[in-house]
């Protein structure tokens, strides 16, 4: 099966981006280079084509009920215009996806990982049986662009019909771009401040070039990956899978056991009281050599403790960092471990997460979740 193309595909190819398949789409990995794109986001601003992310729209009197049933975080307590991170779990607590839910006065939007779009649509179809809820997949009629970095808001000034600078973190508003409806949210997946914008397909190239003209650097999925790794945000398929539960992943804050019934609640309640399963940790490696997904994590005496789920040289930190799962007794910050990278053993230390945290602006509440 050939890969899907976003409305920006031709732009990426014309600018000689290196393209690769990702989640069923052909996406840009890099334009100028991963390191320079990464640094642009940390020091100024960069923009990403994230149109591959699935956008599902829900209406109907039972839309809230459906979302409460399939989402681990609370939807009922959300205010209009609020955005919330959470998981979709199986009955046994295994993670089917991590998603964002947007609440509007009469509808909801869910932003779902590209590779999970069909799986989640099927899951929702199954659970909406008998409920008054309509689900519309808007992935193919809209595009999504993230603009991230300390200058992201300033460089977005005046682009939209409404002033978006007053948006609070993890809030969204409907507005217009060139007289066409769009949605702007103060969200992201880089550890920086910024916006994510959903526009009609026909507006995607225009918005992309407008951001470029204002100084924002086009960035590929390579930089998106190193940025999210430094910010210790989990990536589905790596830190999150159907074989792992959100408690192990350190996402217990996005699981509201007391909100009422939802799929996976009993399993997650049990998981929250058992401390035996491997848990997600951050690792800082005492060399610039990278540990890669699948590398075995060992104790100093050679006992296997777990494995790496993501690893890379981190451009901001100028260190090699990784995330992985280890048995709880080896998860304490400061624990010394070894990572087997095909023969060679790298020394590593369990580190507090996130590896990188931006200095928080005064206007931003300190206790907002930093995951997206």
């Amino acid at each position, binding site marked *: 099966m050939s890969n899907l193309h976003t409305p920006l595909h031709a732009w990426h190819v014309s600018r000689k981006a290196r393209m690769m398949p990702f989640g069923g789409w052909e996406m840009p990995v*890099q334009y100028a280079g991963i390191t320079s794109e990464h640094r642009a986001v940390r020091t100024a601003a960069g923009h990403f084509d994230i149109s591959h992310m699935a956008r599902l729209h829900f209406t109907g009197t039972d839309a809230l009920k459906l979302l409460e049933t399939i989402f681990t975080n609370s939807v009922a307590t959300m205010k209009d215009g609020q955005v919330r991170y959470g998981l979709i779990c199986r009955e046994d607590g295994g993670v089917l996806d991590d998603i964002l839910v947007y609440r509007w006065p009469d509808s909801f939007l869910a932003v779902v990982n590209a590779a999970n779009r069909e799986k989640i649509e099927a899951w929702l179809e199954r659970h909406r049986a008998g409920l008054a809820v309509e689900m519309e997949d808007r992935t193919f009629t809209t595009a999504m662009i993230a603009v991230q970095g300390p200058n992201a808001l300033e460089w977005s000034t005046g682009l939209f019909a409404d002033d978006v600078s007053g948006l609070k973190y993890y809030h969204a508003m409907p507005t217009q771009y060139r007289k066409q409806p769009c949605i702007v949210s103060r969200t992201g997946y880089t550890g920086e401040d910024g916006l994510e914008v959903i526009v009609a397909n026909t507006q995607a190239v225009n918005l992309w070039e407008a951001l470029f003209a204002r100084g924002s650097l086009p960035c590929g999925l*390579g930089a998106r990956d190193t940025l999210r790794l430094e910010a210790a945000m989990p990536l589905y398929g790596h830190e999150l899978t159907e074989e792992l539960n959100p408690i192990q992943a350190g996402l217990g804050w996005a699981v509201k056991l007391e909100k009422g019934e939802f799929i996976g609640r009993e399993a997650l309640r049990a998981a929250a009281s058992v401390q035996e399963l491997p848990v997600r940790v951050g690792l800082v490696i005492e060399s610039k*050599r*990278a540990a890669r997904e699948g590398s075995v994590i060992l104790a100093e005496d050679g006992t296997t403790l777990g494995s790496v789920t993501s690893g890379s*040289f981190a451009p901001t930190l100028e260190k090699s960092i990784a995330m992985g799962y280890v048995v709880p007794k080896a998860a304490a910050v400061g624990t010394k471990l070894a990572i087997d990278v095909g023969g060679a053993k790298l020394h590593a230390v369990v580190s507090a997460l996130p590896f990188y945290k931006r200095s928080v602006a005064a206007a931003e509440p300190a206790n907002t979740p930093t995951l997206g």
Partner: protein
Amino acid sequence: MNPIDRRYAKSHEWVKLDGKTVTIGITAFAVEQLTEPTYLELPKVGKELAAGDELGIIESVKSTSPIYSPVAGTVVECNEILATNLSPVNDDPFETGWLVKLKLAPDATLDALMTSEQYDAQLASEGH
């Protein structure tokens, strides 16, 4: 274009002969495919390598790649500059970004390696 004064391996290393010694590096194409190097591991001086042995490891943000020795010999020198700065490999892989020098093994030759013309043709046939 690839310099004509040396030979090339299929795995994108170059070898330049100077008497009984060869200088080995990776090609501009290899660097472009790899993207900016972030880590390099080279052998110790004195190490004996057969043709095709792993000579070192080079990493970028996205990937880890072995570097193979195209010829048999003994390591006599590593490019010291690269211990602290990998930009010569990125910016000038055919000259200041060389990796190691080998004293050729007694029977070793470069005859089995590609000429620059043949290597250009390999890249073209791979669609680059």
